[in-house]
C-alpha cells in the first residue's frame, strides 16, 4: 500500500531473558494511512507495546532487539535510520502517549517546561514563545486556568490531568501520527471517556493519523477506522471496523467480541475466552491460539497458519476460516 503514512512489515522483536530468547513481536505487519485511526487490540502481554516501542526505537537495547522487519514512515525506514534522524521524527512527526500517566512525566520539572522543551527543540522557538504555546496547548487539552498551571509539578495533578499533559506534549509539534498506548487504561471510567472524547476531537481538528493501542473492544468501537488484532506476538486478524464487528473470521476475534464489555464496564475485559495467553518463553508450535480454539484440528497445532486475504483490507491468520464463516453477533 503506497498511500500508507506508516507501513510496518514483518516486525520481529525479541528480548534476551535468563531462560533464553523471548520473541515478543513475531512477524507483524500493518499500515496506518494518513488521517486514519487504527486500533491495535489484544490481551495484555500480546506484544502491542513492544511493537509500538520498536517502531520508535524506544525499547532498551539490551535486553530488546529488533531482529527483522521495517517500519517505513513517510517513505523512510525508521528501523534503519541513524539515531540522529530518528530523533528529528520522534516528538515532531510522531507523538507518543504512554499507558502510565503517573510515572511518564518527569517529577522534578514543571509541566510547562516539559511541553516547552519539545517546542524549543523541534520548532526552534525561544523560551517566551514556547511558554505561550505551552499555555495554549494545556488549554486545548482541557486543563483549566492553564496559565496558572504551567509551573505546577506533576505531583500536583491527578492522573487524568497528567495524561492530558502527556497529550499536550505529544501534540506540541503537530505530529502526523499519534501513537497512543492504552492512554486511558490506568484511569477511572469517567475520566477514560473524557480523554477518549478529547483524543477524538483533536484527531478531527488536526487530521493526524492515530494508532490506538488498547485491550478494550469498547474503546475500539468508538474510535477506530480499522483494527489489527494481535495474539501472542502475532497478528490474528485485520479488518475495517464494520467488518470486524459484523463478520470477524478469526476465532480469537470472535471470542473477543463474544466477551465485549461496553466502555462503561471495562472491568470484565477480555477474560471470557477460556484459557490464557501462552507463555511467551515457550509458545505452542503452530497456531498460538490453537490450545484455546474450539475450531482447532491437529494441523493447527503443527504449522503456523498463513495469513489469508478475505476481502479488501480484511485478513486473518487462520486455517479454519471456512468453519468460522457462520459467526453471528451475540
Amino acid at each position, binding site marked *: 500500500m503506497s498511500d500508507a503514512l506508516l507501513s510496518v512489515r514483518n516486525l520481529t522483536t525479541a528480548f534476551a531473558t535468563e531462560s533464553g530468547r523471548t520473541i515478543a513481536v513475531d512477524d507483524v505487519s500493518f499500515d496506518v494511512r494518513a488521517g486514519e485511526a487504527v486500533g491495535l487490540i489484544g490481551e495484555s502481554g500480546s506484544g502491542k507495546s513492544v511493537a509500538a*516501542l520498536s517502531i520508535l526505537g524506544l525499547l532498551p537495547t539490551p535486553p530488546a532487539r529488533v531482529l527483522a522487519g521495517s517500519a517505513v514512515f513517510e517513505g523512510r525506514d525508521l528501523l534503519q535510520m541513524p*539515531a540522529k534522524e530518528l530523533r528529528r521524527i*520522534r516528538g515532531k512527526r510522531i507523538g507518543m502517549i*504512554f499507558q502510565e500517566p503517573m*510515572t511518564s512525566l*518527569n517529577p522534578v520539572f514543571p509541566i510547562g517546561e516539559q511541553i516547552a522543551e519539545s517546542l524549543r*527543540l523541534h520548532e526552534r522557538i525561544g523560551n517566551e514563545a514556547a511558554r505561550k504555546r505551552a499555555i495554549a496547548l494545556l488549554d486545548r487539552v482541557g486543563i483549566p486556568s492553564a496559565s496558572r498551571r504551567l509551573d505546577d509539578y506533576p505531583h500536583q495533578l491527578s492522573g487524568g490531568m497528567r495524561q492530558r499533559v502527556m497529550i499536550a506534549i505529544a501534540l506540541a509539534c503537530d505530529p502526523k501520527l499519534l501513537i497512543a498506548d492504552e492512554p486511558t487504561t490506568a484511569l477511572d471510567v469517567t475520566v477514560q471517556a473524557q480523554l477518549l472524547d478529547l483524543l477524538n476531537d483533536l484527531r478531527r481538528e488536526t487530521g493526524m493519523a492515530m494508532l490506538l493501542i488498547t485491550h478494550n473492544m469498547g474503546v475500539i468501537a468508538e474510535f477506530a477506522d480499522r483494527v489489527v488484532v494481535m495474539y501472542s506476538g502475532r497478528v490474528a486478524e485485520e479488518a475495517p471496523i464494520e467488518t470486524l464487528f459484523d463478520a470477524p473470521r478469526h476465532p480469537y476475534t470472535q471470542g473477543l467480541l463474544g466477551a465485549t464489555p461496553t466502555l462503561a464496564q471495562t472491568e470484565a475485559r477480555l477474560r471470557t475466552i477460556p484459557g490464557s495467553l501462552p507463555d511467551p518463553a515457550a509458545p505452542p508450535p503452530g497456531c498460538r491460539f490453537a490450545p484455546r480454539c474450539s475450531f482447532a484440528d491437529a494441523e493447527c497445532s503443527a504449522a503456523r497458519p498463513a495469513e489469508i486475504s478475505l476481502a479488501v483490507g480484511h485478513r486473518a491468520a487462520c486455517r479454519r476460516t471456512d468453519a468460522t464463516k457462520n459467526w453471528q453477533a451475540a
Partner: protein
Amino acid sequence: MLAFAIKRLLHTIPILAIVSLIAFGMIKLVPGDPAVVMGGTNATAAEIDQIRRNLGLDQPFHVQLGAFYWNLLHGDLGNSLLLNVPVTSAIIERLPATLWLSAYAMLLTLIFGLATGIIAALRHNTWVDQAATTLALIGVSLPNFWLGLVMIVVFSVHLGWLPTSGFVDPAESIVGFLRTATMPAAALAMLQIGLLARITRSAMLEVLRQDYVRTARAKGLPEWVVVMKHALANAMIPIVTVVGLIFSVLISGSIVIETIFTIPGMGALLGNAILRRDYPMIQGGLLFVAAALMLLNLLADMLYAYFDPRVQVDRDG
C-alpha cells in the same frame, strides 16, 4: 525556601545547646581534678589554685554553667591554656585553611565522583563500568593518610612537582593554593570519590529505567539532554543526601591530612590541644565543628528541597 531555612536554623539551637553542654561537661568528666591535669606534673599547689580560679572551678556548678553559657553567647570561649590567646581568635585564624581544603576536596569529589558514576551507569555491564567500579572500590579501600604519604613520595620527592607541605590561602594566590592544596585535597577526596561514584551509579541506573526517561526520548531529545537533564536531575535527590554527609567527613578527615602535609588548619590546632590537654581549646573546637556540621546539614536539606519539588518547604506553610 527562606522560611524553611529559618525554621531549620531554629531547630539547630537546642542541638547546639546540648553539644555545648557536652563540651562543658567534658571538663567535669576528666578523672581527678582538671586543674591538676592541666597544670602538669611540675605545677606547684599555688599554680594549680591559680588555674582553678582562672577556670572558675572554685565556683558552685550552676554558677559555672551559667558563666559558661553567658560567655558563649558573647562569643567568648575562654583563653587557650597553651597559646594564651582567646580560643575564638585562634580558631578563626586556623579555620580558613581547613575549610578551603575541605571545599577543594568536595569539589574534586563532586567532579570525579559524579562523572565516574554517570559513565559507569551509561556503560552499564561493559568493561568501562567494571573498570570504574573497580577504581571506585580501590578508592574506598585506601586509607587517606597512606595515599597522602604516597603522593608526597611520588610528586614531591621523586618528581619534585609539588611542595611537600605548607598552605597558601587562595585569596593570596590561586596558583599557590593549587600547588599546596591539590595533593592533600586529592588524598582526602579519594575515598569520597569512590563512595560518591558508587552512589551515583546506582542512582542513575535506577532513574534511567523510569518511564519519564522514555518520555524524554520519545520527545526526540538528544541523549545527552536525556541523561544530564532528565535523568541526573532525579538522581541528584539521593545524591545530595550523601553529599552533606561527605562534606562532614571531609572536614573531620582534613584534620588528619593537615598533619601529614603540615597545613596550619584546625587539625594541627586541635591535635596539639588534645595532646596537651588544652581543654578550653578542645571545647571551642568541638563547638565550632558541631556548628559547621549543622550548617552543612541545613545546606544539604535545602539542596534536597531544591532538587525534589515534592518536598514541601514553605509552599504550603
